[in-house]
């Protein structure tokens, strides 16, 4: 029977745009960065020690900027805080779970960082003067005891919070998957695999971002100083990256194959996803260039040991996973649920500038974190009190050198 021609229907619009697709991207990166710091702090893997702190800083910064995307998309941004009010809080809404996680997870991260950074903050306070001294004393919360017993307490409590942080980091990203997967009105979102798929692709993108960050910061280091970081990428982190990629490929295959055998709604969804501009983003940017290419490139161990190959693959993955989120969030909404038209969506100038602004803020905060915080382990020679004029220099971020 020929399909009837539609003469009139009210157009549906895309409610969640670019900013909302940025949100799962940022929380995913944060969860992954935390996971990698946990390899050092919870599982005590010696090789990951140099990057424990930098990935912790990255995790906190990403999670600080992530909720801004949500607030930017709210119709009534001034009422955002009301989600937290006990009489308004709704246990059945994944956004209700989210507010607990979004509040609890950064607190856990910061408390963990406090314990693991305290020793170096105290040492920095000892070699600085004036405002800097007061600042680092504040970061150590005026607990300047450096006795072995106090340091052991730090390690114990830091580890406890690091352990607590693992389920928190996983949930803070998985809940984002649930936000979409509980929406039965959107057949493309309403899949039980989504939270897990989000987690896997988050691990991929987070590892990639960390590799990029490490390669960038080591570019300003002496060869000898950069060695532990580069060795880590060549050996452990690069391998981990490839295995995450392999898992992601498996999830994509497992998620996509049943779609071709699925119901009318899903099939129609698939047609929309794979056609036009959106199809280009899904097939080429997200899956071929952003996933398959890095996966195949790093398959030979020889390439996994090459920093250039790792850098190239990481850049592709960071872009590819962003488009995975974008295609997922927008792709679910492109098909009008009442009528039959495909909705056109182009990010508005406001959305674009807000996204750039939020990412820019993240970069700025991260650089500030690297500048202020002792993310490299302070070596003993830097702590010996230098002559007075050199004090300021010694206390500068280069202290770790």
């Amino acid at each position, binding site marked *: 029977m020929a399909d009837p021609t539609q003469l*009139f229907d009210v157009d549906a619009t895309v*409610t969640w745009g670019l900013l909302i697709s940025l949100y799962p991207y940022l929380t995913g990166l944060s969860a992954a960065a935390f996971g990698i710091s946990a390899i050092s702090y919870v599982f005590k893997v010696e090789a990951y020690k140099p990057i424990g702190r930098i990935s912790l800083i990255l995790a906190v910064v990403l999670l600080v900027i992530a909720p801004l995307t949500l607030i930017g998309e709210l119709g009534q941004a001034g009422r955002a805080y009301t989600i937290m009010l006990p009489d308004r809080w709704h246990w*059945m809404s994944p*956004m209700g779970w989210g507010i607990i996680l979004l509040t609890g997870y950064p607190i856990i991260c910061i408390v963990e960082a406090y314990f693991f950074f305290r020793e170096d903050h105290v040492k920095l306070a000892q070699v600085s003067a004036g405002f800097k001294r007061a600042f680092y004393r504040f970061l150590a919360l005026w607990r300047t005891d450096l006795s072995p017993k106090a340091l052991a307490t730090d390690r114990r409590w830091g580890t406890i919070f690091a352990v607590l942080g693992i389920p928190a980091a996983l949930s803070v990203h998985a809940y984002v998957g649930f936000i979409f997967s509980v929406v*039965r*009105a959107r057949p493309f979102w309403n899949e039980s695999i989504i939270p897990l798929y989000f987690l896997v692709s988050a691990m991929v993108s987070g590892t990639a971002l960390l590799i990029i960050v490490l390669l960038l910061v080591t570019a300003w280091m002496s060869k000898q100083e950069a060695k532990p970081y580069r060795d880590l990428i060549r050996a452990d982190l690069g391998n981990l990256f490839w295995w995450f990629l392999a898992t992601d490929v498996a999830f994509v295959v497992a998620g996509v194959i049943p779609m071709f055998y699925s119901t009318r709604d899903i099939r129609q969804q698939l047609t929309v996803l794979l056609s036009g501009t959106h199809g280009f983003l899904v097939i080429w940017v997200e899956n071929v260039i952003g996933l398959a290419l890095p996966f195949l490139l790093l398959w030979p161990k020889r390439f996994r040991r090459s920093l250039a190959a790792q850098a190239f693959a990481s850049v592709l993955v960071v872009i590819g996973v962003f488009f995975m989120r974008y295609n997922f969030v927008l792709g679910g909404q492109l098909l009008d649920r009442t*009528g039959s*038209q495909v909705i056109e969506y182009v990010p508005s100038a406001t959305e674009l500038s807000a996204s750039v602004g939020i990412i820019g803020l993240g970069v700025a905060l991260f650089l500030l974190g690297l500048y202020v915080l002792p993310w490299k382990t302070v070596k003993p020679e830097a702590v010996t009190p230098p002559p007075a004029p050199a004090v300021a220099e010694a206390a500068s971020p280069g202290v770790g050198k």
Partner: protein
Amino acid sequence: MGEAEASTRREFIEKGIVGAIAAATTITVVKATGSSLVGSARAQTIPPDAKYYHLFPDHTEMQKRYAMVIDLRRCIGCRACTVACKSENNVPEGVFRTWVKIVEKGQYPIVSHLFMPRLCNQCDNPPCVEVCPVKATYKRGDGLVLIDYDLCIGCGYCIQACPYDMRFLNPVRKTAEKCTFCVQRVDAGQPPACAATCVGRAINFGDLNDPTSEVYQLVQKNPVHTIKPELGTEPFVYYIGLDEGTEFRSAEVD
């Protein structure tokens, strides 16, 4: 672990699974019978002004259960309902709480126009209410799904969750909005604006728990259809004479 112990454990788990399945089936059966439109013996205890944010009660327990029956055989596609709704509810330009979808079926000379007035389905089991993070939207004891505009933060989650695309962000108030069955009129004892204005009496409004009401009789005497019944939302807007092609996703995607 000994073998005997293992087998007891297996038995235990098997029993547990069987028990769980039995329990689940019972619940489904109860729910299914409960929601059948034939009046049940259950006590109608829920007052019209009760508020529910989740775990929605069955409509047979409500003292009143407002519903709408749209007889498409009588719809002429004049869109008076759209206009009446706009003026009654002060709906801003560019958005609609109710409208008439129009579809052309067949080819000349065998051709017909099909109309489908669309509005909030006031589901018995509304997915939009479950996901609201601030309890701004709720289901009332008489079945109306309403929004408290002073609480809504405009996150758009309910708009995503509605399988019928009936919610939208009010561009002026910046909160979610949808058809309320004209709650202000219903509370004053009048029918919704669209039902009151419908020239062909296609739109009928009333209490489905009252056997003397027009909607009850229309539903019992005619083959009725709800939209997307597979989602388990149990809409309370019934259509008589709804064509498959008018309902959803009729045209092809290019």
